């Protein structure tokens, strides 16, 4: 984008030290830890957490899949304060009867993220003039901030921007959801009250940083065999959460691999008698094993349509955001 390049040129001319640094996990959402506070749970199916076999079921005729990406790069230092440009995007891709995914919603933002004291008013105006969005990071404690702490603060801000975009698109998507249409969200459903209350919205969680069960229930949940699910438990609302029903489902055998191999947790709006709808939803998600999301490293837990949304979002991301100047040189021997 020429606006960003022009802005950067002016920024460097004004004395900012150029940098080109890709912090870890800036190329996308790689196992974002569930940082929600521990919430209370209650078994709503069976008196004891049990394991139920699941048979593949045909999916609904129309399903939307929501996912988002975030990319960011430190482009300069104001003293020791990092200035980053970031790109966050989200999309809903709708699967029709022909099995093909087509984009229903897409939104992207290009941000300049920096500590508040770096983004003075003239710089904000320059950022706006370049078509970018200035995002200040309010840091705790007196300046100067440690660079490592500042980077973490920037990362969280980018993460929040992406989540906000996902929530917004999720809201738009469920508002326009057809009568028999479902929406599958990559990650927790509970982060959005609108989504968490919708009867045909699902959250599919691949990472298991936050655990809701303990003791023998936890062991039974994490060792559930392939093509089996656990009983449904209700996750009560805590800070920033809406009450949802949840259960574990194993897509692929984990023996010989890892405990979490093929294991997903599903969130769905809380409702009475979950045992009547959960088997069907579980069977449908089990059927989503094909098409395999390979070559993505998370293919054991990543649904192919979510992988497709990520691919779509990456293909629309600005190509020069993550590329460092050196990589623009032609490779030798090719």
């Amino acid at each position, binding site marked *: 984008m020429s606006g960003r390049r022009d802005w950067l040129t002016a920024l460097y001319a004004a004395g900012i030290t150029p940098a080109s640094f890709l912090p870890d996990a800036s190329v996308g959402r790689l196992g974002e830890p569930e940082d929600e506070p521990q919430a209370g749970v209650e078994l709503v199916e069976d008196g004891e957490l049990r394991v139920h076999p699941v048979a593949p079921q045909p999916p609904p005729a129309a399903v939307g899949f929501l996912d988002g990406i975030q990319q960011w790069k430190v482009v300069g230092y104001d003293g020791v304060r990092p200035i980053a440009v970031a790109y966050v995007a989200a999309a809903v891709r709708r699967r029709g009867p022909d*099995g*093909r*995914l087509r984009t229903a919603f897409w939104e992207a933002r290009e941000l300049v993220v920096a500590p508040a004291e770096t983004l003075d008013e003239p710089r904000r105006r320059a950022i706006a003039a370049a078509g970018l969005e200035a995002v200040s990071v309010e840091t705790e404690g007196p300046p100067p901030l440690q660079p490592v702490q500042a980077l973490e603060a920037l990362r969280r801000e980018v993460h929040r921007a992406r989540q906000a975009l996902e929530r917004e698109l999720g809201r738009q998507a469920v508002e326009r959801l057809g009568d028999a249409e479902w929406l599958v969200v990559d990650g927790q459903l509970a982060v959005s009250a609108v989504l968490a209350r919708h009867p045909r919205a699902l959250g599919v969680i691949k990472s298991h940083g936050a655990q809701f069960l303990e003791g023998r229930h936890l062991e039974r949940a994490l060792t559930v065999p392939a093509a089996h699910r656990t009983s449904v438990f209700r996750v009560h609302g805590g800070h920033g959460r809406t009450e949802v029903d949840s259960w574990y489902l194993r897509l692929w055998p984990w023996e010989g691999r890892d405990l979490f191999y093929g294991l997903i947790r599903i969130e769905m709006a809380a409702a009475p008698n979950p045992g009547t709808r959960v088997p069907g939803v579980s069977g449908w998600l089990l*059927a989503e*094993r*094909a*098409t395999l999301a*390979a070559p993505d490293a998370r293919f054991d837990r990543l649904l192919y349509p979510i992988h497709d949304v990520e*691919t779509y979002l990456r293909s629309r991301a600005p190509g020069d955001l993550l590329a460092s100047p050196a990589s623009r040189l032609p490779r030798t021997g*090719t």
Partner: protein
Amino acid sequence: MIDRSVSDPVPIGRVVATEQKPATPHQFHFWTATETSVGIGAIVRVEGGGTGDEGRVVYGVVTDGFAYSDLASPLHDVIGAEGDPARAAGAPTARAEIRLWTAAVLRQMPEEPLQPVPLGDVHMASDADVALALRMDAYLHGARPTAIPVGLYTSGGLEAPVYLDADFLVGPEAAHLNISGVSGLATKTSAVEFLLGALFQHFPPHRGKIAAVCFNVKGPDLLFLDHAGTLEEEDRRRYDRLNVEPAPFERVRYYAPFKADGVNLNTLRTHGDLVGAVEPLVWGLTEVLDFAEVLLNRDDIDAKADAFIDFLADRVVRRDFDDGFGGQHHVETFADLERLFRSIFDGLENAGRGDIWRTHHIATIRKVRNRLGNVSTRCKGLVTDDGPSSDLPFGRFEDRAVYVIDVANVDPLGQDLVFARVVSKLREHLERRDLGVDAVAVFVDELNKYAPADGAETYVKKMLLDISERGRYLGLVLFGAEQFRSQVHRRVVGNAATQVFGRMDADELATPGYQVLSPATKIKLATLPVGELMLRHPHFTQPIFVRFPRPPVLRGRDGVERYPPAQDLPFEDAVARQLTRLDPGLRPNQVKDLIAGREEADVRRALGVVRRERPADLLATLRRRLGGRVAPEAARERAAVPPLNPIPEEPY
């Protein structure tokens, strides 16, 4: 004609370039939706839209196509379906896949500076785009257009006429057409028939007159060019689109030698309704002598024999000649020549002058005599011992006429003679500009046989090479056809500016001559349907696929079914038929009465004269030529002479 309506503004694809697959000035890659009308051979237009590319337009033809998904390993699909293909087919989500096409650049506008193809939108080509892409605009319009319709480029519902440039088909810029393809699909013959029709109808007036000479070398292929064939509505629509009148040839002249009996024509066009239009092709000594090399084994033609044949041609034939022994000769026929030879041998023997006559050794003379003497035997029906010849109307060729020479049933030696002589005569007359037309297209099928890449240097091959290399200056154009292009002499196919390919054999496509074609193009060539061809022409920088309509003439097989060949007639009936054709008022019985009891050789000779002179009173001329009938004289009975001394007891 070219439809100049604006093309569809909606792009069907987008040029992509990566380091591995970059866009170059000669090639580019683009992707389309999976549901697309683009296919191998499709012509597309790329519009430059980026900085510096505004206004640039690039035309390309699709040469290859790729489809792939995001599947990194086939094993992933197996795992996803748990080893069950049926389950894979039932997967809820279809994998993202791509249709990626490779296109070869046909033309860039502007032509300079020549740059890599811009990464712009790709559109299907319209009629006008096809004309520009193939550089047909240079000869399609203007004060003196030279465009000859050759077929329809069809892709994505578009049918755009494709034209050849007459200056590059018939000369003088370039010339000759070569068509190759597997046999049995009737594509080669049909294509030539259609193209000749289009050439006759669209040959530019400022280029003068044109005719065609077609050698019918197998079956009844070219024997019904003057009869309308069956056309379907689709064919008529294509003719309309190409602005070609779907009508059989107006002027077709057929020529065929006689069979060995000298009166029945050696052709399959002998049905009573049609045989009248077939002229006999009969040559005598003067016609053959210049081409003796064709008829004699190559081993026979040493320098001495060659010199003696030249001596005969220059000093003896058609001249009053003194044999040096007091004999006067005027050699016109093989019979006259035989008399001369006999006179020479007798003279040498009687004079005791040794073995030399006019510097030629008697052994050489005997060898030439033997070989020439056998010519009329070996080519009986085509070459006559005695009597007048009947030939093509060299010097009186008609504009837009087709001269079909049926040599399908003539033995190979005779075919060689016919090719060599006809083409040589055409060349002579065109050099003198007195043929009657300004250009002649000569159609020769089975070049694998007549101009093979390897094998002996035959007279016919030399003649075909000569046309290929020098014909375009004269207006003598070779339309050659063969099954295996790789096995035809390189200079014959190499000099053909216009190359046409029908369905090809996979083995043939594996030969080096086809290395320039992409694998996809080869596959398309190997599966081409009847009526579709791949075309190369000097104006087209890449091969183009075109469809042509069925020719408007009766196909050989259909013609033979509709007009079954007649049985050979007895000698008298055959003579009567020939004469009644010349004069329909003549009754067959009059002819039969006249020739009854005559020597067949005498009748053939007289018939030849009548055929050549076409007198007002055929019967009178025939009678005069046959001469007076000499009544047989019975031997007188002699009176018996009694023995002087009869012996009564004589036991014997």
